[in-house]
């Protein structure tokens, strides 16, 4: 099992606030890993550090052994890490297909090549039938999947998903779980930042738990939920099983 991404002693502070404190973990190729934790645990900061949207105060991020934490987001994307945004950000005046094409221009300048890649991306998330719709005609789960399709068009090695299932009904989330599992079977490595525990259990093969910016547990989902420290962070002290 090869390691795709390594996060080494990553820290980030905003003024006096330490959002991420000495966090280390690694992602294995072709697996789905989830980054979880209660509100304010530093999940999104950690995610932005990996995506290049924020620079770490200390520590390193390595993709296939190459240090990437000094690179701007567009360079990180071109090295093979694509991300989605927690708040979905479709380009308003473009169709679904055109939105999905943008990512492809990170590796081609050929419009028809980008278009066929965009179709492929939309197909893999089940949006191909709505390729010519306007983005404001999409439902919330469809918009979340469009975000994923946009990221897939960049041909990533690693896909970072920021709360793709937040605000969805269980049936809608189940559809997305199916899509993610299929992508992982196809060899894509996925890092999920997620709030909904039940879904994480179902889809992730490994879970990293953050609390107050620090890593408090890591391992297969079954083990992690039984960890008293994790229970305490989510539910407060006094809920030990």
């Amino acid at each position: 099992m090869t390691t795709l991404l390594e996060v080494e002693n990553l820290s980030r502070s905003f003024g006096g606030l330490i959002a991420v404190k000495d966090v280390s973990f690694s992602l294995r190729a072709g697996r789905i890993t989830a980054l979880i934790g209660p509100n304010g645990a530093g999940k999104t900061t950690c995610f932005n550090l990996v995506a290049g949207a924020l620079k770490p105060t200390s520590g390193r991020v390595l993709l296939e052994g190459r240090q990437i934490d000094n690179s701007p987001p567009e360079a990180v994307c071109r090295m093979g890490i694509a991300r989605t945004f927690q708040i979905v950000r479709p380009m308003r005046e473009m169709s679904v297909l055109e939105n999905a094409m943008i990512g492809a221009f990170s590796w081609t300048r050929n419009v028809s090549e980008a278009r066929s890649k965009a179709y492929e991306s939309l197909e893999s998330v089940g949006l191909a039938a709505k390729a010519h719709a306007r983005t404001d005609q999409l439902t919330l789960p469809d918009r979340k999947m469009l975000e994923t399709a946009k990221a897939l068009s960049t041909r990533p090695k690693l896909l970072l998903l920021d709360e793709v299932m937040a605000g969805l009904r269980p049936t809608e989330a189940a559809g997305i779980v199916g899509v993610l599992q299929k992508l992982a079977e196809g060899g894509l490595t996925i890092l999920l930042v997620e709030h909904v525990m039940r879904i994480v259990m179902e889809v992730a093969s490994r879970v990293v738990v953050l609390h107050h910016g620090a890593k408090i547990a890591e391992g297969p989902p079954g083990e992690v939920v039984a960890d008293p420290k994790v229970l305490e962070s989510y539910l407060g002290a006094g809920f030990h099983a």
Partner: protein
Amino acid sequence: MLANPYVISLMTIVLLFTFLGQSWNLMLGIGGQLSIGHALFVGLGAYSVGVLYVKYGISPWVGLLTGMILAGSVGASIAWLSFRFEVRGIYFALLTIAAAEFARIMFSGWEFVGAMQGLFFPAPTGGIEISMLRGDARFYYFVALALAALGIIGTEFISRSYLGYVWRAMRDDESAARALGVRTFQHKILVISISAATAAAGGGVLALVQGSIFPDSIMGMGLSVDVLIGPVVGGLGTTFGPLVGSLAAIPLNHLMSALGDSLRIPGLNNITYGVVLISVVWFLPDGIWPAIVRLCKAIQAPPTAWLWQSRKVEE
């Protein structure tokens, strides 16, 4: 209609401002970068043609090329400096005004380029000389027509190329575009320098048409506003917006100017400009051209579709 010299000269101006509007439109409508100092680039183009031709007798073709290179580099430098230090959006727009005013004042005091007295092209001899880009009013009408057509075709071409997609993505959401691998820093510089270079080409021809160059008119705020009226009225980011907008705004301005003179109401044209701009922003916020497109679609489609579409627009 083309026999009337007034109509010819008016249409020449309309077409030239279509082209200039197109260059501005490329920058804001597609690239998302606002310039309120486009007169700087127009002026650089005009002076390049003027100085080389009037002082040294060098063909305006060379002047146009020089102006485009000069304005493109100046545009790129302003953009580089600005974005390097994270000056963007409305602050970048203010910087473009400052740069244009700086250039205007510099050229106003620069004796070599005629300072406040300006530069005058020799009177036309009557014959048409393509190599020197000299001819009568009708000749310039066709030059302006060719330029406007080139501008429309060029915009459409860029719009459909990968640049168009990448620039629109950058315009709509810069950080989302960067996350998808768009090198927005380079692309912003590129769109601004292309826009500046095309504005300079338009400025060079404008100088030839007018036969003279004065810093206050070719590099003044008034010209920067004239450049953006067409695309704003016609439809920002659309291929035909600048043409439709210029066709609507410039003849109206001339008409009101004449009417103001005969009624002795000074500034009537500027008041009308203001009223037209406010009306367009109020009633047709995305411009005349998109409204025409909607109307055409509505005539073919059932009335319910029209209602739905107009509601969408209000959102």
